[in-house]
């Protein structure tokens, strides 16, 4: 009888083992993916500030955002001077959701997306890529907006 039980239980043990392996794989994947998903604007601010080697300043960020840098547009041309409200694309007229994370929690939660838009928009507004210090300043200013 014990022998019979042993054999009868084996398929269950195998499937339980498979189940366990699958679960631990899923858990490992989840853990590996988690940091990217859980990225916040504060995390991105911290990494830009660290890269710049200086403390970010929100007054400097506000000025940067609202000033022309030798080209046609400012950041505010599309995002408006109040980043807690919707903006409008200066050439296509498409509505742009608020930039301030307090008004739009999706902002600055994907590092690659943040970098893509900084690259493009700094080229349009400043005529070059922005420095880590400039990004940190703008971001720390955007984070001063509260709901």
């Amino acid at each position: 009888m014990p022998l019979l039980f042993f054999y009868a239980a084996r398929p269950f043990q195998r499937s339980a083992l498979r189940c366990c392996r699958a679960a631990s794989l899923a858990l490992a994947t989840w853990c590996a993916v988690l940091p990217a998903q859980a990225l916040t604007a504060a995390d991105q601010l911290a990494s830009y500030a660290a890269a710049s080697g200086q403390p970010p300043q929100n007054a400097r960020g506000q000025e940067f955002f609202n000033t022309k840098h030798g080209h046609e547009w400012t950041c505010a041309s599309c995002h408006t001077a109040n980043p807690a409200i919707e903006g409008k694309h200066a050439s296509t007229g498409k509505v742009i959701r608020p930039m301030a994370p307090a008004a739009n929690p999706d902002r600055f939660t994907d590092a690659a997306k943040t970098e893509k838009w900084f690259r493009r928009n700094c080229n349009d507004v400043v005529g070059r890529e922005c420095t880590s210090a400039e990004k940190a300043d703008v971001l720390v200013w955007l984070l001063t907006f509260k709901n």
Partner: protein
Amino acid sequence: MSILSALHRPAVLLGLAAACLGAPAWAEGGVATGSRLPAYQAECAACHIAYPPGLLGAKSWQQIMGGLSKHFGADASLDAASTKAIGAWLAGHAGTGRRFSELPPGNRITKSAWFVRQHDEVSASVYKRTAVGSASNCAACHPRAADGNFDEHDVRIPK
């Protein structure tokens, strides 16, 4: 197989009927959306409607995708993999036929001869209205433009 016997085949008949009823999609306004490449939708519709790929020929799309860093006055550059994937999809869904043999100036849909012909009753002042802005703002007058639907019956020109 003779023409007559071919005409008796239901599939052929159906095809002929469809060809007769449906003028070229663009001419009818109803550009089939099909299933759009998610990357095309996500990247291009971030700034403007995702223009139906059949509104430009493959050569125009190729030039547009090759110059994204200077895209109609803005930097719309993408990573290499996305550029390649979207470019390939556009090439495969581009408009074909005689009307696309000549490239519109600046690869602008709105400068295409067929576009100008289709909109010849719209005066230049209409495009300058605040709610319109420019001819490239399809959705100002075609409410379902984002879905690739340009049906003339739906046109509502803002005052």
